[in-house]
């Protein structure tokens, strides 16, 4: 698996070195994080948000299409997983599968209505669709728990027949489980980006008109890219439900969408690992600042403004450019 970026070769650190560093850090989180005053549950949150943003980034960074409503698929993933655990069976893998399908399929269907729209209109319609999902979760009291959220389910231990993994009771074990799912998803994304389809996405991003002249079915590709992106974000949503043992209508709200977009941009939306870096920055910022001051919204908002104005390429983009210069 290599880092797929537009200018991957010009980074200071070679892609394989980058990989080694990232995975070494991720695998050892439970050992070093508490020493720095962190706690394992927050590392799980970082991974979940990173995965959601990486899913979005397939669309945003690699196809050049903007969605400001990805919280809908994230939230549907969470509800899908929660509802499965609550009403169907106490099986974590089944919950993940069901939630991913729910969010992914909903995204695929919405995508059909969306693909012909562009720019600001596209963004507005994605927001509005996101709010539709929010309202359904919020209104359908008896089934989804409504405003109070869906409760009454817990993630189930993994049963492999020969041995059991207690991801329900053991936080560290659950972190590794999330990391495992994250690894698989990220691997899949890298494969997709390396495939001919991935190249087409880049072509559409770079110049949609030219791609069209070359006879590429642009709408179809955007739709497909939207759909795939929704599946990954929904997968992240299922993990979010498992992390909290709870699904919450606010997880579907446009504020969450904004956060997911911000994570991708903050880390660098044209780089493969950017959203992960963004998730680290964003979750840490929110966690620490909101403990320090009631005015955390001011700081988070200011961060948004500063990133947009000063670092639009995100942290990874910045490093990359520096690398290109040296």
């Amino acid at each position, binding site marked *: 698996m290599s880092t797929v970026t537009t200018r991957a070769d010009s980074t200071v650190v070679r892609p394989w070195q980058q990989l080694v560093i990232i995975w070494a850090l991720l695998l050892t989180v439970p050992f070093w994080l508490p020493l720095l005053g962190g706690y394992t549950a927050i590392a799980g949150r970082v991974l979940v948000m990173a995965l959601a943003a990486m899913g979005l980034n397939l669309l945003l960074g690699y196809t050049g299409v903007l969605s400001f409503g990805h919280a809908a698929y994230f939230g549907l993933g969470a509800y899908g997983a929660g509802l499965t655990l609550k009403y169907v069976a106490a099986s974590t893998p089944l919950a993940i599968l069901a939630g991913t399908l729910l969010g992914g399929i909903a995204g695929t269907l919405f995508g059909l209505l969306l693909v012909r729209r562009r720019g600001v209109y596209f963004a*507005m319609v994605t*927001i509005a669709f996101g709010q539709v999902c929010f*309202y359904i979760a919020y209104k359908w009291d008896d089934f989804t728990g409504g405003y109070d959220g869906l409760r009454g389910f817990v993630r189930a231990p993994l049963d492999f027949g020969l041995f059991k993994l207690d991801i329900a009771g053991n936080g560290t074990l659950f972190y590794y489980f999330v990391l495992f799912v994250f690894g698989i998803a990220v691997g899949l994304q890298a494969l997709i980006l390396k495939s001919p389809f991935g190249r087409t996405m880049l072509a559409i991003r770079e110049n949609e008109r030219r791609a069209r002249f070359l006879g590429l079915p642009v709408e179809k590709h955007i739709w497909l890219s939207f759909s795939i992106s929704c599946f990954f974000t929904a997968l992240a949503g299922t993990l979010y439900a498992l992390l909290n043992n709870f699904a919450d209508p606010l997880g579907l709200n446009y504020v969450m969408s904004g956060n997911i977009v911000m994570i991708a941009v903050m880390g660098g939306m044209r780089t493969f690992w950017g959203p992960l870096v963004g998730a680290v920055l964003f979750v840490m910022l929110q966690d620490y600042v909101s403990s320090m001051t009631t005015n955390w919204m001011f700081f988070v908002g200011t961060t948004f403004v500063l990133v947009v104005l000063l670092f639009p390429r995100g942290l990874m983009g910045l490093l990359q450019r520096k690398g290109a210069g040296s």
Partner: protein
Amino acid sequence: MLQLVLFNLTNGLIVGTFYVLMALGLSLIINLSNVVNFAHGNFLAIGGYLAFVLTPFIGFWGALLVSPFLTAILGFVIEKVLIRHVYTRNHIYSLLLTFGLGFILQDICRYIWGPSPLPLNIPQSMSAAVTPDLFFITWYRVFMVAVVIVAVAGLFALLRYTRVGMRIRAGTLDLETVSALGVNVPALRSLNFAVGSFLAGLAGVLAAGQLGLNPNMGDDLIMPSFIAIIVGGVGSLTGTLLGGLLIGVAAALTTVFYPSASEAVIYVIMAVVLLVRPRGLLGEEGMLS
């Protein structure tokens, strides 16, 4: 029953005019600058809070006149300092920028005026009902509708008959040509943003008189405005006007038959419009797509 429906129809139109006021400002900015201003609801809140501050000194009427202008100035400054940097960039940046700006403005309101709801006192005579039969139409609501009508008529007149207005309209259709003809586009956009903020500020004062103030007050009002624009068709102010009235009436009529769906119905309308007529009721094909 018929009386109930008629009452609610009237009521829906009253509520709808309010959505219109809110959505028109948003729509203006989208049309000329291609920016979806997420912070529009927060400009509304600022307008309301400014009126709260001004009322003890210049009374409600004075505040109603002054507060929207102050909001417009704030909008003008923010456009100059922040927003103008993102016009040439991907839409994502303008969305994130205004999203973050919304956070900042909301927190400033909370910091200055506190989290508790505050009342904006309107003249006593305004809160009485017009007639005992039409008890739900208070003078204040009549007044609100009148203000909205004047504002909307003023806006359309401005766009049609003044030089600036014509330039804004022309810029909406073809910005490159307008720019090539020597119009100062940055100034035009700043002014346009200020007009949009003015409408938000006006809506804020009116809303505060009716519903009181709290730092999140804009959040609940921004989504209906979005829907009004999508339903009416992006790019068409008349469409926005129609969209706003339509969802106001639909929400009110739903309350008669199935009250808990009164919020959801506007999304249903949007979905139907998008399925049947993807560009919105009065949207032009090719516009912004």
